[in-house]
Structures are given as structure tokens and as C-alpha cells.
């Protein structure tokens, strides 16, 4: 073998080794995910039962359940969605369709990019100082929902902007040519055509909010709530009640955190079971997002 052939052979085997290494690392990362799910299932699957889903927390691990936690998660998500989605979509439409090219717009852009990098617990501190003690909203569903709403607002804005940007300019020009005003163009064309990606972004943002724990601890979530909030309906006119907004709250990740941080192993089993349900919630939301994205992508060909 000539020296040059030897050199080539060496580089080729290095190349193969490098490829192998990359593949191994990738498989390790995926195995970690599998190990995590496996460990949760191994610890928690036996604890999952109807009783677990319908019981309140308790001092006795075998009697404890997560009903106040999952009801709380759904209600908090409701407030979060109602706060973040209109605001985020509105801001995105403004930035993409209306905003002039000036310093104020630049300020908003830089601001959104920076907000996305702020640690989530800092949002919790802000909500504690502002919502709880300045606006006196209390440590309630309303405060929790608004906190998470502010947390996911940058995500909603960024996702919606990307969706709107993918609508080609000739669609707008066609609408203008037919005499549509700017808002008519946006409402009847730009937003409907980008609805798939917007929805995907919303669901992913909410799935992030479902798992958030730190800001809600800071705001003052309780982990031992042995009652359900006021129902959102009532007998008399106007039939809807907003009293639940001001009830003390707990959510799934808070309940899980509480159980993990106890020394008794029986509570760790409960934590694993709660973790399984939490994981199922977030993964299901991610799956729905992927399906929506795929379906809308198939229907639209520019």
C-alpha cells in the first residue's frame, strides 16, 4: 500500500467512526427519553385507577388522588388561553401586516426576542409582586392563568408571525385589487389561510404551559386542596359564574412536585402516577399539533 492509499484508508475509517459516534449519541438521547417514560410507567402504572383520578389529596398515600389537580390544570389553561391567544395573535397581525418600519416596531421586536429568553420563574416573581400584591387578585386561578398567559405570549406571537409570513404577498395583492380594505384582507384571507400553523403554535404553547411549575409555586399555589372550585355555572340569571376565578388553585405539576419532595416512598408512587398523566397530557397535545400541521400542510399548495 502506498502512503497515499494508507492516508485515504485512515481518513475513511475515521469518517465511518465519526458517523457511528453521531448515531450512538443520537440513540443515547432517545434512550434517555425511553428510560424516563419507562421509569415512570414502572413506578406509577399500578397506582393509576379510577379512585386515583377522583380522589382529593390526602395524608394517606393510598387514598390520595389528583381530582383537584386535573380540574385545576384545565381551568388554569382556560384562563391562559383566553389571555394569551387574542393578545398574541393581535400583536402578531400588527407586527406582520400593519407595523411601520420605525424605532417603536424595532423596540417591540427586540423586546419579544428577549422575553422569550427570560427564565420562567422570573415571570412568577413579577406576578407575585404585581398581580397578587398590587392588583390584589389573590393567589387564585385568575392570577395563575394570567401568569402563564404572559409566559407563553412570546411563543404565541412568534408562532403566529411565522404562520402569517408564509402566506404569499400575491394573496394580499389580489384582495387589495378587488377593493378589500386591510382588515378585510387580514380577516378573510391572511388569517384563515394560516390557521393551521397558528393552531399548531397555540397548542404547543399551551402544552408548555401545562407542564410549568416554577412560576406557579412563586405565585403561591397550594398543594393540598381538598375541595373543587366553585362551578362555572349557576341556577339563576346569568347562569355563568366567575367566582371560581378567585378560588385558590393547584395544578398537576404542583401536585406531583409536592409528592416527589416528600420522603415516604408511597408518595413517590403517587408522584409517578401523576407524572404519567401529566406526560400523557403534554404528549397528546404535541401529537394533536403534529397532526394539525400535517393536515393543513397537505391542503395548502402555494
Amino acid at each position, binding site marked *: 500500500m502506498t502512503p497515499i492509499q494508507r492516508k485515504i484508508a485512515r481518513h475513511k475509517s475515521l469518517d465511518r467512526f465519526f458517523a457511528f459516534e*453521531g448515531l450512538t449519541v*443520537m440513540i443515547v438521547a432517545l434512550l434517555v427519553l425511553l428510560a424516563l417514560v419507562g421509569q415512570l410507567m414502572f413506578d406509577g402504572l399500578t397506582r393509576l385507577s379510577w379512585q386515583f383520578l377522583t380522589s382529593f389529596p390526602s395524608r394517606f398515600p393510598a387514598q390520595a388522588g389528583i381530582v383537584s389537580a386535573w380540574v385545576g390544570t384545565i381551568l388554569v389553561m382556560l384562563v391562559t388561553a383566553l389571555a394569551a391567544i387574542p393578545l398574541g395573535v393581535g*400583536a402578531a397581525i400588527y407586527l406582520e401586516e400593519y407595523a411601520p418600519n420605525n424605532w417603536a416596531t424595532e423596540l417591540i421586536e427586540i423586546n419579544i426576542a428577549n422575553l422569550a429568553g427570560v*427564565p420562567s420563574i422570573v415571570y412568577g*416573581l413579577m406576578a407575585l409582586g404585581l398581580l397578587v400584591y398590587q392588583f390584589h387578585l389573590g393567589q387564585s386561578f385568575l392570577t395563575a392563568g394570567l401568569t402563564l398567559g404572559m409566559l407563553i405570549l412570546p411563543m404565541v406571537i412568534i408562532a403566529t408571525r411565522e404562520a402569517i409570513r408564509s402566506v404569499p404577498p400575491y394573496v394580499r395583492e389580489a384582495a387589495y385589487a378587488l377593493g378589500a*380594505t386591510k382588515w*378585510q384582507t387580514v380577516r378573510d384571507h391572511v388569517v384563515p*389561510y394560516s390557521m393551521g400553523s397558528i393552531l399548531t403554535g397555540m397548542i404547543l404553547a399551551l402544552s408548555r404551559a401545562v407542564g410549568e411549575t416554577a412560576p406557579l409555586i412563586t405565585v403561591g399555589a397550594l398543594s393540598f386542596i381538598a375541595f373543587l372550585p366553585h362551578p362555572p355555572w349557576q341556577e339563576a340569571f346569568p347562569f355563568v359564574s366567575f367566582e371560581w376565578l378567585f378560588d385558590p388553585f393547584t395544578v398537576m405539576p404542583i401536585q406531583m412536585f409536592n409528592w416527589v419532595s416528600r420522603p415516604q416512598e408511597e408518595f413517590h408512587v403517587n*408522584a409517578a402516577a401523576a407524572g404519567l398523566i401529566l406526560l400523557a397530557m403534554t404528549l397528546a397535545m404535541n401529537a394533536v399539533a403534529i397532526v394539525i400541521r400535517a393536515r393543513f400542510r397537505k391542503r395548502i399548495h402555494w
Partner: protein
Amino acid sequence: MEANVVEMPVEQKAVCMSRPSRFAPRLQERAIERLLQLAAFASVAITFGIVGVLAYESVLFFQEVSIADFLTDRQWTPLFADAHYGILPLVSGTLVTTLVALLVAIPMGSLIAIYLSEYASRKVRECVKPALELLSAVPTVVYGYFALLFVTPALQHIWPGLPGFNMLSAGLVIGFMIVPYVSSVSEDAMRAVPTYLREGAFALGATRMQTALRVVFPSALSGITAAYVLGVSRAIGETMVVAIAAGMQPTLTLNPLEPAATMTAYIVQVSLGDVPHGSVGYRTIFATGLMLLSMTLLFNIAGHVLKKRYRQVY
């Protein structure tokens, strides 16, 4: 143009037929624009809220504790009778866990990104990317459980003396958590490198590895830096994993095998207790939060500078 297949709204708005005056729609248009503008400025209001609250409470805090003590005292015992307010132990805890996390996430994330962008077939990439992104979709409290009850016991087989709470397992788990952030952004950056650069390298006889490491990676360095910075700020701000698995004891140590509280874990600890509103103890969490925010901001600015420096234009 290939007509898009989303159905047109069936009932066409009868605006052009029955316009009452030339004025009304314009007024409506303007009102809507103002409303949307207001929504956009809401995000600025949030920033003002964050900075305002942290600054206000911190100013009150620093009226009672000198800034010099805060930055140089080596003890953090604000809730004890003998109160010391030195942030250093919390900062060291944060830095150690972040460092451990980065030692996992940066090599792994970069290698995965190189593999996916330079070696993997389209099919593999399309399957692996969403699967990896699921890693970052898992709630952090679940990662905390995993760190405390799976990784720590596993590590205790290797180091029998390892305490039940330690920064190593928390850092490792945070590292795995941020791998997808690093890999997905780096991969996008590498795929944006034009193909002719690769073809040039191949034409000179370079292997795929040489091309990846000496041509593609340096050309994509700007975007890769952005990925690393994203990873760093995630690791610094991560709360639940450290609060569950790294312990709550503020200790000034750089040894990852020891338990120590981070800044975020301290905020959680105080929030779980019943420190009265308006006391110095209550204000410590805002001063800590301000420190945390400043550190992430610092890294973000550094990242921005590096990103600009390495930017390549094709």
C-alpha cells in the same frame, strides 16, 4: 398560481354594495389598527412589569442590606437569626449545575446536529427530529423525578458515597433536557450552509467528516453560537430539576458531587414557606431574581456579540 384549497368564505361580505359613507369603514379600520397596536405593546408592558417589580423590591432590599455584602459575603442565611446575605453560594450552585448541563448538552447536541445534517438520510431526519423535540416537551417536574429517583440511584452505584441530593445528577438531567434546543437550532444553521461549499470540499478529496468539521461547522458558527446561548439560558433558569434533585442547602462549593441550592431553587424554597409579605426575607427572592435575570441577559448579550462576529454572508 396553484389555487389554494382552503374554501373561500361562502357569504361574501356585502361591504362594497351598501357602504353607508366613505367615512365609517375608515374609522373602523383605524380603530382595529389601534387595537392591534395595543396588543403588540402589551409585550413591552410585560417587560416593564418584570423589570419594575424586580427593581422596586430590590431597591427596598438594598436599603437594608449593602450591595457589597450581597456580592461578597460567602454565606447565604437570610432566614436564620444570624442573617447573612451573600449571593455567592447560590451563584456557584447555578454555575456548577449549568456547567455540568453544558458538558452534556453541547457535545451531544453538536454531534447530533452534525449527524442529522451531514450524514442522516431525509427519512431518518424526519423521524428523529420530532422524537428529539419530545425530549424538550416533557414537563420539567417529571425530569426532576427522573433525576432524583433514577439518575441519582444509578450514579450511587458508581460513587457509593454520593449524597441523595447532588448537583451532578441535576446537571446531567438538565443537559439531556436541553440537547434538543442545541441540536435543532445548530442543525438548522448547518443546513443553511450552501451546498457548493460542501461540493468544493468533496472535490478536493475531503471526507464527510473533514467537510463537516472544517467547512460546514465553521461556516455555521454564527447560528451554532445562538443555539449554545439558548441552551445556556435554559440551563441557568431551570428550576424544578434543581429544586427536586440538587438540594436546598446554600453551599459555596464547586464540587458537583455535593448538594447545593441554586438561585432558582432558593426562590422556590422561600415561596413554599410562609415568609411574611414585605419582610427582608420576602425581598431576598426579588434580589435573587434580579441577579438571575442579569446573568441570563449577560449571556444573551455575549451570544449576540459572538453571533455578529461569526456571521458569514454568502
